[in-house]
């Protein structure tokens, strides 16, 4: 490598790169109706050992983001721009072959629906050892032994005999455990879990989240947990990124987001869910309207069409000027909102928090 080029592990401003760094990621899909801007200018950083929760409703761009990190949009008609740095290697500009080497070995992924995510015609064991064989030069027998070890580790009883079962012979929770075994068999340093418990019962969800946390501690990997459930985030994550309309609207440490959120959309999410840990409310407070079109994204702030607080901002700024993601009350807490920071914090304390 030429010495005139900057080292890939260092940013242009001289700061050392984070383990995972996403800079101004945009994923656009051209369709007959227009360009769908699924992800539009997303940036975040993640270090090893951290769990980041990406929260948002369907269509907010959270799954598209995870596929972009794995480079799975390559070969599709998606237009992906920006930078994704994983441990000093850039993924968007890399070739399919280069990213393929990283998939499974450096980054593993778990999906929402474990039944449709497993191939119906191959045994669970064969699918797990296949993941091991791609990245490790071992015999099939050794791969089998490793797959059984992994199945035992994720808590599947009688692993040697369940190895030969097909996915349809597993229960929902067992299938997700098998998916985790498959994603982690090469000990990746980044694990992306896309709604890993949405299709599962609460009791099974608790088991799976527990397992993810335990394996995360053991491998000291970075984890991205994508979910729409704020309860799951509160239980599992260190950092939170709230997505709306393909953009990050608020991000920060988990306690900041739950105890001092500053973005009206985050308030709306917290207010709209019925909670077991609070006195029962006579009425829920939904966010009015429905999520925005990703083809005709609202001008100004993406949330302005559903935001009850646009009157707190002078003039028509919410509808005309796109707000920047700026620091909130504490470092590491960033908010995309035109309401002045001090006023936001006051609204939370006086109007939102008491009504939860």
């Amino acid at each position, binding site marked *: 490598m030429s010495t005139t080029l900057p080292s890939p592990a260092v940013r242009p401003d001289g700061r050392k790169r984070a383990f995972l760094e996403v800079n101004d990621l945009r994923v656009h899909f051209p369709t007959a109706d227009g360009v769908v801007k699924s992800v539009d200018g997303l940036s975040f950083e993640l270090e090893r050992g951290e769990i980041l929760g990406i929260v948002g*409703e369907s269509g907010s761009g959270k799954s598209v983001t995870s596929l972009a990190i794995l480079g799975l949009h390559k070969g599709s008609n998606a237009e992906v721009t920006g930078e994704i740095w994983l441990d000093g290697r850039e993924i968007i500009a890399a070739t399919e072959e280069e990213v393929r080497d990283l998939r499974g070995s450096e980054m593993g992924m778990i999906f929402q629906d474990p039944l449709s995510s497993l191939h119906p015609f191959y045994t669970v064991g064969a699918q797990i050892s296949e993941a091991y064989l791609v990245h490790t030069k071992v015999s099939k027998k050794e791969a089998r032994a490793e797959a059984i070890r992994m199945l035992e580790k994720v808590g599947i009883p009688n692993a040697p005999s369940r190895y030969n079962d097909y996915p349809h012979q597993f229960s929902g929770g067992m299938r997700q455990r098998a998916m985790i075994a498959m994603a982690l068999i090469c000990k990746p340093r980044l694990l992306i879990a896309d709604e890993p418990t949405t299709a599962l019962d609460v*009791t099974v969800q608790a088991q799976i*989240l527990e397992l993810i946390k335990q394996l995360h501690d053991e491998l000291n990997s970075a984890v991205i947990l994508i979910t729409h*459930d704020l309860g799951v*985030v509160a239980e599992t994550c260190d950092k939170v990124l709230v997505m709306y309309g393909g953009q990050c609207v608020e991000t920060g440490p988990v306690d900041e987001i739950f105890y001092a959120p500053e973005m009206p959309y985050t308030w709306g999410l917290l207010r709209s869910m019925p909670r077991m840990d609070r*006195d029962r409310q006579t009425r829920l407070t939904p966010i009015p309207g*429905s999520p925005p079109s990703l083809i005709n994204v609202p001008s100004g702030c993406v949330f302005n069409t559903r935001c009850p607080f646009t009157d707190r901002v002078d003039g028509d700024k919410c509808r005309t000027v796109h707000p920047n993601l700026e620091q909130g009350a504490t470092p590491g807490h960033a908010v995309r909102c035109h309401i002045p920071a001090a006023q936001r914090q006051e609204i939370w304390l006086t109007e939102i928090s008491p009504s939860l």
Partner: protein
Amino acid sequence: MINETTAVPAPASTPRGEPLLSVRNVSKYFPGSHSGLLGRRGTPIKAVDGVSFSVDQGQTLGLVGESGCGKSTTGRVISKLLEPTSGEIRFNGRDIAGLKPREMKSYRSEIQMIFQDPFSSLNPRHTIGTIVGAPFRIQGVKTEHGIKAEVQSMMERVGLNPEHYNRYPHEFSGGQRQRIGIARALSLRPKLIVCDEPVSALDVSVQAQVVNLLEDLQSEFGVAFVFIAHDLSVVRHIADRVAVMYLGKIMEIADRDTLYSEPLHPYTHALMSAVPVPDPRKERRRERILLTGDLPSPSNPPTGCVFHTRCQKFREELTDVQKNRCRTEVPVVTENAPGHEVYCHFPAPRAGLTDLLKTGAAT
């Protein structure tokens, strides 16, 4: 209309003071998968096995439990989409369990259903007007201003634009489609609606809109709900009474406040401890009862108490003599307080579980 609304609170407005719906010892068995050429049958799958509960007029009963616990099958049996294998379903003072489809016709308009998936439960080739108006045509109901006017006023009531009368389901969002399903179910002013996971497929913000709508409609039309859901938080919000099911049987049934403040069945404890709450500090110091293993097969349920194979109390607290009772004896109902029924040999409140959930303050 106003008179109807005010008449709701008295739960005993049906003949002889009976509840609107009273389910007694109802079972639904499905034939085993190995039904052979010569009529040889495998062991039946006991999807619902002797459940009893009742629903008063204008009230909501929540049915909760894991997938495969029989809550959806129970809903389908009540609305007679499935015939019960045995038991009695008294609706409005009459046993409808054995009624033939033809005899059921008049009851069809009084019991309606709302389904989980607003995408697949609406015929994509029919307009909204056709879908919402179908019950009128099927039942041959005459309306004052014609079906269209009636349908449009119903659409307006559930928050849909009446001008969209001629649109097709794919032109609507998930939340709007669920509104269409609600409008269809409500169009004939039924007395009971069985809601099978009506908000599970919706986003949080939209889910709250639909839950509010259901509550508004209940107080306006005095309709009773059987609300089937796996989300305990939503059920706590909407239900007046809650039944917890496991492997085809009811484990515990009580008034909402009683069940959530003083659950007695170990299975209810496990379910409640598993619900994540959006409060990181509480989550960090919270005790979680993890169920071990998988749901046993409903064609070969455990003997005695069906839950004992996964029960934490059974594993950790009971003596061998007590354990033996769980293994061999099917628990009969214990009425802890009036209306609080528990099917457990050793029911007891669990310290630490509910005070964590109850405290109001965030910090």
